């Protein structure tokens, strides 16, 4: 490839590459945020349902550690959705009062979760690990004081699989668009460059510096002006030379 088309190719490559890459990135981020958002809201809906049942019991004067129906509810909800890893209802200090995993009852939520919830009781999610995410809903007693938290741990395997599948499709589509658009832009730029070259070549042949038919060209007006200037300069120089001639 000649140097000039090579430059035009790299120009097309990088310009289209940037546009397609940024669009792909945007779509990937959007998909990730919509997908994880739908999952989180779905889990939060259950967490809020549990917290509203707990709050109703507390408002009837029941003790936080002795809400008979709650264990039943969380077990039912835990089984209803395969996404859930486990549901815990913990007191304000992080001690688990009810759980779908009975062995967790009496143990404590991780200290960093308790710290984060103590700092901001309105948190609805906690930092996820690679394999699990956590949705939280605060439970308040009849005096609107923080009594505990409904915490749902859910798996991220589905999210990873969906993201990987989407990324594969995205990469393939971006590659197709990238190749087609790069070649298309390259072809148009080369055509434009040749068109310009043709205009210059016609102008050059009109000046008589290169072979070929001149024909009409976009620089005809300028060239006529230049030719007139050359002619006038030539005549002026001729006059000077003519006056110098007899002396010789």
């Amino acid at each position: 490839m000649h140097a000039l088309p090579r430059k035009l190719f790299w120009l097309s490559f990088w310009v289209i590459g940037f546009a397609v890459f940024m669009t792909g990135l945007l779509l990937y981020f959007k998909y990730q945020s919509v997908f994880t958002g739908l999952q989180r809201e779905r889990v939060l809906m259950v967490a809020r349902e549990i917290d509203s049942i707990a709050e109703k019991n507390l408002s009837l004067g029941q003790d936080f550690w002795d809400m008979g129906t709650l264990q039943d509810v969380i077990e039912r909800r835990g089984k209803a959705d395969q996404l859930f890893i486990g549901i815990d209802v913990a007191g304000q200090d992080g001690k688990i009062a009810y759980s779908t995993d009975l062995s967790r009852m009496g143990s404590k939520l991780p200290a960093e979760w308790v710290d984060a919830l103590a700092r901001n009781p309105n948190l609805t999610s906690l930092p996820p690990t690679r394999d699990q995410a956590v949705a939280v809903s605060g439970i308040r007693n009849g005096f609107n004081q923080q009594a505990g938290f409904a915490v749902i741990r859910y798996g991220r395997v589905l999210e990873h699989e969906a993201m990987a599948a989407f990324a594969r499709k995205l990469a393939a589509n971006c590659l197709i668009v990238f190749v087609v658009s790069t070649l298309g832009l390259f072809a148009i730029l080369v055509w434009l460059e040749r068109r310009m070259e043709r205009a210059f070549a016609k102008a050059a042949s009109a000046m008589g510096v290169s072979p070929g038919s001149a024909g009409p060209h976009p620089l005809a007006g300028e060239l006529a002006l230049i030719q007139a200037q050359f002619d006038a300069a030539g005549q002026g120089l001729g006059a000077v030379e003519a006056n110098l001639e007899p002396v010789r």
Partner: protein
Amino acid sequence: MKRAGFFQGQLWLAMAVVMVVVMASIAATVGLMYRAFDTSIAPQMIEKAKTAGRSLNSLLAQGATHEIPLEKLVGVSELFADTAREHPEIARIELTRGGKALHTHGPAMPAELTTRLPVPGYEAVNAELAVSIDPQYVRRLFEEMSLDLLVVAVVTLFISLELLYFLAGSLLADLGAIRTQVATLTRGAIVALPHSTWLGRDFSAGLAERTDAIVLRYQQAVATLGERVRSRRKGGRASIYRAIASLRTLRSRFTFTDRRGAGAPRSQNAALILGAMRAPFFLLLLADDLSRSFMPMFAAGLQVGPLPLSPNTVASLPIFVFMLVVALSQPVLGGWSERIGRRRSFLAGAALACVAHLLSAQANTLLELLAWRSAGGAAWAIAFVAAQGYVLDHTDSKTRTVGLAAFVGIIMVSMICGPSIGGILADGIGHRGTLALGGALTLASLILAWRRLPADHVAEKAPAAAAAKPRLSLAFSNRRFLLLLVLAAVPAKLILIAYCFYLIPLYIVGVGSSSAMAGRMIMLYSVMMVLLVPLMANWVVALRARHKDEPEALFVAIGLALSGIAGLAMALPLGLLSPLLLVLLLGVGQSLSIAPQAAMVAEVCKDEIRSLGQSSVYGVYRLVERMGNASGPLVAAALLELGGFQTAFIAIGALVLACALLFAVIFVPRRPVPVPVAVAAVKAAS
């Protein structure tokens, strides 16, 4: 006009083609992925609809425990409406008994989009809850994304312009060379000029050949004439006089020598050297502008330690230290950069910026971030001074304006692209990831600068004149200058940084929007500046020419007033339209006042410029103006702490409006001596 038309037309056509293909490629990518997005998200929406159905069922089931017939349940329609409102992907909720609808919310939907759940306790009457998802949900998501996609398209256009300069600078130089040859020859200047090497070689060489032939004839005629005059032959005196007269006539119409003299080769090199500086400088600025839309939020999330600082103050400090370091370091960096050489100082700036960005991405405490942002500010100032030095060193009086326009153009393009793309990236890869990407960009800038920036010829230079140092006492000795600084320069910068870099990013995220939206707002301001500043400057010049008047003070006053009124727009209950209106008004206001304000310095400080020099006076002006930059976030943080967003926006707006009124009272009635706005603006920039 037609001459400019052909060359300009080719460039416009090329840019239009690039834009169309870029838009088409974006549309094709989105179109191809729409289906994949839709099919992949739909099962998740169905799952969520099932969960919503189960949640509603648990409430409906309470009716069964109290043996209330389904048709007697109250508030069911309201419950359905609330649920649909809370979850926009749910289009319809229906409660049926034996297939007959009892309570419905939303339009009918196809069966494949509907999930059906039996209502516990009402199984005997065959009660079902049907929840349908909205098939238009994904389309709405894509519509919401259209703003982001438009941003990508606009940014791609600007980036492609930079790529065009970087990858095809020689093509543009060729077009420029042929255009110059044609323009010069049609004007009657028959002088040897550099001709093209890639495009239109034959044509350019043909013009050069013709030119050379005429120039040679001219030189021979002049030489012969000189020889005749020196030989003093009596017989030919009359013809010599006639030859001289013909030569005079010829020279009255044509030029045969390049009168640019020693400046000529300098000007010819300018395009290449500025082209080499363009890409590294752009990357370095872009790296910094990436973080504009989220820096306050990033700082607010860091550990403060024992420092008794409010979150709002914490959010303002990184911008404050950055601006302060830039303001204080630039006056001393000019001389230093000249001493050690532009290349070395740019490399030092890029290396420091790289370290500063990468370490900012790792910062865990506020103090760490402040240290790295200070280093980033110093790096920015070093690179800025070095790049500006490249322009000034490699341009002459004829090409300096074009060189400085290119320099300002790079800054504006970076301001347009950086915050908007940074916002999108921050929403996706996080604040730290975007800062680290900034580090990678500065590394690319360093490598490009290392490879492409030409070495300085320090030995060839005349001994550098002592750099003019700003003398702050100047500001206090001239009362009108002091008033110009206090009432116009400082408020204009204070409101700009307070709003665009501090309050808007915090406000936008505070009302539940994203960093990308904050980036778009800052981008809008930059786009307005790019479009409006030249228009406004030309308007001032035209008014001056038409009315023989000096409208600068009036423009500054109106510009400041509009900037102040912009803040008052936040009092309107328009949601996100309020900051949009603010940015639009601020953009118009700032573009009205920037150039006239710089022009007024020359008028107000005529005596000082005569005695101390222009650089010194403008040095003080820029220094004080940049202190306005630094104080912006601190003032905004204090007001935010005192009364919240609305108070902060309105108080700053009211303060600037008051300054505008005072400024108008003091300056507008007077009739200052005219000083060309464009000249003063360029001088101020230099």
